[in-house]
């Protein structure tokens, strides 16, 4: 019996997610008195995973997996899980992994729980806490099936160092014919994406028009943040759809979320509740966002944001 973690990578590189799930897997393995094994696909520097507790890494390298493919990835993870007799499989809850996990769960005849925010509160019955009702609540979910697949919500557990002397072995997996073919990947490069960001700077209809986003981008630049927006802003075409956060957009679980000219409608809050610290800048002291925020400035974005940029630049240089 073992705990298997899938450490996802993009272009060979691990992101924070991968370290988070390995950290989580290490603890679950301790709870169960078992070992943690990790599977990687076309990843470099697998030894970095030892820092977070990976005792054994099974590295799968195959050109047929050079672009992400849900079914093929699921089948690779399943083969390692079977070979290692893994009763618990842990993954992140990124867009790609949410694509893989349900396929994997069926293949393993497992109980799958996504968006898990804490370590199992009990391993018998196996109980995990997950987000529900679009971040307005949590559910404590019991997995009855023998095999458990757990999708850890991003930034919900954290990255913890737990160095071990690990080893990496290559694993020869059979690549399933997947039926879905990737034709083209278009990614905005050079920008922090919402999924990777520790800080998100988000703006709403209070900004009046797309021409005013320069200062939002500048503020994000100073903070190394990703930019985001409220739904009407993307509906109006001021910003790309991929930036729309909220109940029907992307969820954001960052350390710092700065909301500028956003009213704080319940559907918007649903997507950002999981962020740790929220700052609101809004002209209207009655804006509902102030009820959800940790820090607030009642003020005009067009006056406050340029000043904030200037002060932050000075702060960063100091």
């Amino acid at each position, binding site marked *: 019996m073992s705990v298997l973690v899938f450490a996802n990578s993009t272009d060979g590189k691990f992101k924070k997610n991968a370290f988070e799930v390995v950290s989580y897997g290490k603890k679950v393995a301790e709870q169960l008195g078992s070992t943690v094994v990790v599977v990687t696909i076309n990843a470099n520097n697998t030894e970095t995973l030892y820092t977070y507790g990976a005792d054994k890494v099974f590295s799968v390298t195959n050109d047929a997996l050079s672009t992400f493919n849900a079914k093929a990835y699921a089948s690779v993870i399943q083969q390692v899980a079977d070979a290692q007799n893994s009763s618990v499989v842990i993954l992140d809850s990124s867009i790609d992994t949410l694509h893989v996990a349900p396929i994997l769960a069926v293949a393993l005849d497992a109980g799958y729980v996504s968006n898990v925010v804490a370590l199992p509160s009990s391993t018998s019955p196996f109980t995990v806490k997950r987000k529900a*009702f679009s971040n307005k609540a949590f559910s404590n979910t019991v997995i009855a099936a023998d095999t458990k697949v757990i999708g850890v919500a991003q930034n919900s557990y954290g990255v913890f160092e737990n160095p071990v002397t690990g080893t990496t072995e290559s694993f020869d997996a059979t690549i399933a014919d997947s039926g879905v073919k990737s034709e083209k990947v278009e990614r905005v490069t050079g920008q922090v994406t919402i999924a990777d960001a520790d800080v998100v700077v988000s703006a709403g209809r209070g900004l009046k028009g797309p021409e005013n986003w320069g200062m939002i981008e500048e503020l994000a630049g100073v903070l190394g943040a990703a930019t985001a927006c409220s739904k009407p802003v993307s509906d109006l075409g001021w910003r790309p759809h991929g930036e729309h956060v909220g109940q029907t957009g992307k969820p954001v679980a960052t350390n710092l979320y700065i909301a500028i000219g956003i009213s704080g409608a319940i559907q918007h809050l649903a997507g950002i509740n999981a962020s740790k610290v929220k700052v609101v800048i809004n002209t209207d002291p009655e804006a509902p966002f102030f009820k959800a925020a940790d820090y607030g400035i009642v003020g005009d974005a067009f006056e406050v944001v340029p000043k904030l940029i200037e002060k932050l630049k000075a702060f960063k240089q100091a």
Partner: protein
Amino acid sequence: MKILVCISNVPDTTSKINFTENDTKFDTNGVQFVINPYDEFCLTRAMWFKEKQGASVTVVNVGTAATEPTLRKALAIGADDAIRVNMESVDGLSVAKQLAEVVKNGGYDLVLAGRESIDYNGGMVPGMLASLLDFNFVNGCVGMEVDGTAVSLTREIDGGNESLTASLPMVVAGQKGIVEEKDLRIPNMRGIMMARKKPLKVLEPVAGENATSIASFEKPAPKGAVKLVAADNIDELINLLHNEAKVI
């Protein structure tokens, strides 16, 4: 093309979320139920296929009789017929298994479903369904065309989009982009009248066990009051973010 659209019956997005029976049941008191917003995008896309290139559109829900008004709404939007599998849905896998039966028996070649439901947010039913059926599957779809059995799709990825090709039969989990928000349909009077006469078939569930169950619900801890900083005192905000919140 025979299209099946999976419809989840969810609390309206403005609903206050509360629980009863020692926090083990969702409190439906005063809650309006609607078609899951992601499913609504899919239903509209299905209607587009029906009108532009010919297709039949069936909507399906796994749920108790309480979900029928939501299915009627889907019929009023233009679906041809509806199926309800008479079972309380508590677990993604068991719902997917019921849906798989419906797909097999109905011979559907395209199944559309929202990428997740806004109540349990599992995001698992479409992928599980595809696996159970051994159909092709694309998640988070923001664009889709069908030509014969050839399907071209766009899905959202972190920081961008990916174009894909696949063939029918398949399961596609959609979101905004598969149609635009402005193209969503609101049922009109005629649609509502016609929906009353459209067939809504109730099927008994096939046997199966739940892989997961909910032991209890919790609400997030109440939040402290916001700390307001004067608009001309940005230094204080930076100080708080650095020294108190430790996020910059």
